[in-house]
């Protein structure tokens, strides 16, 4: 087990290194010049050259890459062109907002998906199943920004019971934190939950059709026990995989929802970095997102062994 984790970690380092090369190349290939952008239309050649030199952009790309990756190895991701602040600080400042939203949304998603998916699989082709299908189809189809705005208008303006946007750190008041989190978490969670519902339904259906389920029923187990011990447990493995992917996706920021709820997370940071061609911030953010994916994949794999004793990593 420990050997497995070490092996996977080494692999992850290699992958991250590859990601760093690709990200660096892509970021610099995108048309647009951060210095021109910083100066706007009021362009002055002298100022332009001075700023380019100060940002190190006059160096050859290879030199720039090794400068960047060298510092990154010791935890220094450089300084934002846009704000002049260290990239690591910019990321850390926004990590809490992103973690809160991602975790809140995934909880909402699971609360929706597990019961809904289970019922629609067990009561297949019943009105409950059709209801679940319609709900999940709607959840996937409704654009997030529209649902977000509707929720703001309903709960923020007309009912006036929830704050219409903004993020409050957990440390400044858990109650406030939760109140502000509710609307965005539901907005994102409904979409993720709708996707998850379909996976829960199909993997439960599959488990229901397996021989071991028939055997369990044949030996006279009550239906509740059959579901709990045999069906759900087996159906969980693919669901965990998809939940992991969803979580990793949410951790890399949900830009649209962040904009609607003025929720200052990593998604907005990355969007701003793209718009202002803020190379250091963009590189740092993408590297972090890659890290999230690798970490969550590792956790998901380890979770398999717990859920299914047949899987072993020794």
């Amino acid at each position: 087990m420990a050997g497995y984790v070490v092996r996977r970690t080494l692999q992850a380092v290699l992958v991250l290194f590859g990601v760093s090369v690709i990200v660096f190349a892509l970021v610099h290939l995108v048309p647009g010049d951060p210095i021109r952008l910083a100066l706007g239309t009021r362009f002055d050649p002298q100022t332009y050259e001075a700023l380019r030199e100060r940002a190190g952009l006059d160096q050859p790309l290879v030199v720039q890459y090794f400068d960047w990756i060298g510092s990154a190895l010791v935890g220094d991701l450089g300084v934002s062109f846009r704000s002049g602040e260290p990239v690591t600080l910019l990321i850390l400042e926004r990590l809490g907002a992103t973690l809160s939203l991602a975790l809140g949304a995934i909880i909402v998603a699971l609360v929706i998906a597990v019961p809904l998916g289970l019922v629609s699989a067990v009561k297949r082709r019943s009105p409950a199943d059709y209801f679940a299908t319609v709900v999940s189809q709607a959840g996937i189809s409704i654009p997030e920004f529209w649902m977000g705005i509707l929720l703001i208008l309903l709960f923020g303006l007309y009912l006036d019971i929830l704050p219409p946007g903004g993020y409050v750190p957990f440390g400044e008041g858990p109650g406030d934190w939760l109140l502000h989190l509710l609307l965005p978490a539901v907005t994102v969670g409904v979409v993720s939950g709708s996707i998850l519902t379909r996976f829960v339904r199909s993997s439960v259906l599959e488990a229901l059709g397996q021989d071991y389920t028939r055997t369990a029923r044949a030996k006279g187990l009550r239906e509740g026990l059959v579901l709990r011990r045999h069906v759900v447990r087996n159906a969980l493995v693919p669901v965990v995989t998809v939940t992991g992917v969803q979580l990793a996706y949410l951790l890399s920021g949900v830009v649209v929802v962040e904009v609607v709820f003025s929720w200052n997370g990593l998604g907005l940071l990355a969007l701003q970095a793209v718009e202002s061609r803020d190379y250091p911030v963009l590189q740092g953010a993408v590297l972090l997102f890659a890290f999230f994916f690798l970490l969550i994949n590792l956790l998901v794999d380890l979770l398999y062994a717990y859920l299914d004793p047949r899987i072993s990593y020794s």
Partner: protein
Amino acid sequence: MRTSRLVALVAAVMFAASCSGGGGGVDVDGQGGGGSGGGGGTLIAAISAEPDKLDPHATTAYASFQVLENVYDTLVVPNPEDFSFEPSLATEWSTSSDERTWTFQLREGVKFHDGSAFDAADVVYSFNRIIDNDLATAFRLEAVRDIRAQDRNTVVVELKQPAPNLLSLVGDYKGMSILPEGAADEHNLNTEAVGTGPFELAATSPGSIELTANKNYWGEGPFVSGVEFRVVSEPTTALTQLSTGEVHWTDNIPPQQITSLEDDESVTIETVPSVDYWYMSMNFERPPFDDPQVREAVAYGLDREAITETAKFGAAEVNQTAIPEGSRWYYDYAPYSHDPERARQLLQQSGTSNAQMGLMVTDEYPETVQAAQVIKANLAEVGINVSIQVEDFATWLDRQGRGEYDAFMLGWLGNIDPFGFYHAQHTCSGSNNYQNYCDQQTTRLLEQAATETDEDQRKELYDQAVKRIVDDNSYIYLYNPDVVQAWAPDVSGYQIRPDRAINFETVKLGG
């Protein structure tokens, strides 16, 4: 073991959530008030974009200046009514008979937010910092040969040639702020601010900047204990927050919402014509737009009323020159009307058939994308086939800089003196003459006007230059948009300004 790992993960998440963003944790409510009593609560302003950096000499972002306006001071400030310049850190000024030496008398008893006293050395340091480092505002001090402190309260500026617009150059906006001597070495000015303005920077966090009242402020205010700027980029969210009282002020108002807000009693909304202008420009190096008749055809082909209505829902004034009516530099000249017949004739006379135009616009400024639809329809009538090219702003600027376009639409914001409106855009070697317009007579007129110290003669020179610019269609001017801002009914003493400067010095809450 497995459970405990899960618990550890959740705990780590909670910890991270509680640590980060804590920079905004300073509660400014209830702290002592400003110079004239103050203590009247914290005003919360919802702005639509995030300030990039707080160094007034380095940033070009409007969002940053919304904050900096309240933190820093300049030597002089524009009066919002007629844009004459009024004393601020300088109380009096005079020029030598050859107009090449300006002497500024400085205000006494002013203190920076760090407690140090303001004097002539700070002015010399600030302007030299801009010049020596080629910072974003360096072009404003191009005419300066030398700046020196004559004594503690007197600054002398020597010029290479007369600059009748010097007050505008050093006082238009807070890009020319005065910092304490050595500030750039002692502070990270990107994230810290040491000004003399009515408010001090208290805390920054993602999406929020908090200011507290400067108790030692030299002016009459402030009357609130602090100001918090919150970034709310979605207008629906900003307006909902304004209605529910969560914020007191916002400028994040889509023009199509103005009418419904005017009927809303929980909100005060005001509009005022701005000094900004939006225009279309064609590439003089690319046929067929190198032909004056083709450009004239475009000028006659456009329905400016329809363009303005579509882009701004009526919250703008059509104008065929850059400077809005109301300014003393306004020149009433409008030779074009929407005349597709005339446009077709001109096109025919020029021998152009099957004209194609790529019109470059950017979603950074959605009004250009909207206006482009009308421009396309207008010009189709005339026989010019327009393809609309929507680019992100970085790519847009890149293409503009390399001259890779047929035509584009954009705006210039916040100019006050005609030099800023016309010079760099229309002189042959002007640094912002992307369209490559080069008319010797226009350049001569603009250069003369730049150094003419008699104001009436200067106006006359600019009028002549503008007539040529409009006749040659270097720019096709379209409209001056309104400034639109809204605030809660309990906000008083706020003045909406044509230059979009947002100053909360005199604002009171709960009146």
